[in-house]
């Protein structure tokens, strides 16, 4: 996702201001060991380098270089399939976090991997086989070999 440097630079400069302002609220004990000191240095760095990035881009634009002020429309944004594939990556992480404690790790994993495989152009039967096999192996590895208590939901036993 390409964003104009002016945006990202100003965004980091704003983050720097936020970091500095938040640091003002930290309690300051006597002596040189202030919890405000390091955040202020980092905050100032964000402001300085963020403004340099934005300024550099702005200067290039003023000298006639082709510098966009709006994000360009990229190929993947025009393809609904690729867009869905991208959105589904963070979405599946969030869905696992929300649903696994309620429904159990294995069933949620199988559904997420199945849908994900379909989005990556896998045929439905192959996607189902991959989902079941991979989820079984990975879940058993974590639960039985690594002894990690993955959420089982309403189902008893390590397979859920």
């Amino acid at each position, binding site marked *: 996702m390409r964003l104009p440097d002016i945006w*990202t630079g100003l965004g980091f400069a704003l983050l720097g201001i936020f*970091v500095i302002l938040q640091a003002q609220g930290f309690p300051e*004990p006597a002596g040189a060991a202030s919890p405000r000191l390091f955040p202020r240095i980092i905050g100032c760095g*964000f402001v300085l380098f963020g403004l340099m990035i934005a300024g550099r881009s702005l200067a290039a634009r003023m000298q006639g270089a082709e510098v966009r002020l709006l994000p360009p429309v990229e190929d993947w944004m025009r393809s609904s399939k690729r867009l869905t594939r991208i959105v589904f990556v963070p979405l599946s*992480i969030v869905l696992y976090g929300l649903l696994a404690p309620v429904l159990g*790790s294995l069933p949620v994993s199988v559904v997420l991997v199945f849908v994900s495989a379909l989005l990556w152009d896998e045929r439905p039967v192959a996607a189902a086989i991959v989902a079941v096999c991979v989820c079984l192996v*990975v879940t058993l590895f974590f639960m039985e070999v690594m002894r990690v208590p993955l959420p089982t939901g309403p189902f008893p036993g390590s397979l859920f």
Partner: protein
Amino acid sequence: MDVLISAFHMVFSLDVLGVILLGSAFGLFVGATPGLSATMAVALLVPVTFFLSPVAAIGAIVSCSAMSIFAGDIPGALLRIPGTPASAAYMRELDALNRMGRLDLALGTSMMVAVIGGLIGTAILVLAAPQLAEVALLFSTYEYFWLALLGLSCATLVAGRDRLKGTVSLLLGLFLTMIGLDVTTGLPRYTFGSIDLQAGVSLIAVMIGAFAVAEILRSAQYPLITPQKPARAGLSILRGQGRNIWTHKGAVVRGSLIGTLIGALPGAGADIAAWIAYAISQKFSKKADNYGKGEPEAIAGAASANNAALSGSYVPALVFGIPGDSITAIVVGVLVLKGIQPGPMVFITSPDLVNAIYIVFVLANLLIIPLGLLAIIGGRQLLGMRMGKLYPSILLLCILGTFATNNALFDLWTLAAVGVLVWILEANDYPAAPLVLGLVLGRVVEENFMSSMIKADGNLLAFFERPIAGVLGVITLLVWLAPPALVLLRRLSGRGSANPNTIANEGKS
């Protein structure tokens, strides 16, 4: 001697050997799969290492990274797609030899020199690390502060094309380390009242998010390519390799030494080592004209360098606790999570662990021959694997791996957020490596900075008063100030030389 025997016992136990074998197999799989990097392989291993002993954890990481760097050559030769960036430097040679029908020579040379390069790098690690550790014992918080800052500065300089953006990425990593309880006073910072944030941002979630989830997102944005079935290679790759390596012994030794040296420098990893070793090998070669047309000497020079760089990068990581690249950043992170702070004291408090790491390096490099051979034979099937099977499985490993380390849902939110953030940052030329290095070293920098400030009572000149600290401080400042100063000087001299022309032109008109 007792220490060495104890180290052998630590490595040659069933569980550690089993972990090394599994780590190797995983490294071969990831390295041989185009689009997946050695760093991603190591990041995905981190949750598993969380449950292992320190030796087993390091064994898994070392064997996985060594194997994946070598395995990157397999798709390079078979498909003309480097499996990892470290193989890109000499991919043309591998491909040209394949086209000449000499696939066996291409893969055989790359496999054998990877082993030799790795072993030479290990020998230098064994010889240099204890000597440097003795010097490092003299270091105080001032030296450690400068050393960590110098490491971060160099890493920022070489990461990506844009220094400014690399610096912002580093600042982002340093900012993330400030979230949680303050290292000096124990007061909460940037937690916004959240209990989850008081423990800080999970290093594992950030590493997996930055190196694996962001990689999946990057692959998801491109059209899917159905991989072709490559040519077949087998045991014939070993035929005549003794003579072949002997013929190119100079290139192998030179490549290994260059690789180790570059690997030991902060910020420069296996890929940079391979490119530089390739260029130097060509410069000194009597067959320089053959480079790019399938010259085995070029493979010998460069493929030995990338595996040697891996060993070299452990020198600063082990001796000073300062990671040189993303892989050693993960290693330092894993050791810290296990309660071991890498640095000179490790050589005194845990000499058996240090020796065990040396043994693991030797073992991992030797295992490249049998396991690499299997990977080359099976690579044909692996390279035909569809993305629809691969990426959903990796995503599942990311999710369960992150969740498994702390059983915390909050780590999953971090994983998703960091994955998307790094994907966007990298698309805009903000590199990910300084962010992770900043996160790993942020606490070291702040802790040593604050301790030094307390000792010096806020006097910044005290940071330059000790001789080694002074030298390190000046070098660090030069790293930051010299490039912009040179640019400014060049501009001024350009303007100075431009003026007479302008005046002359004006005179003519």
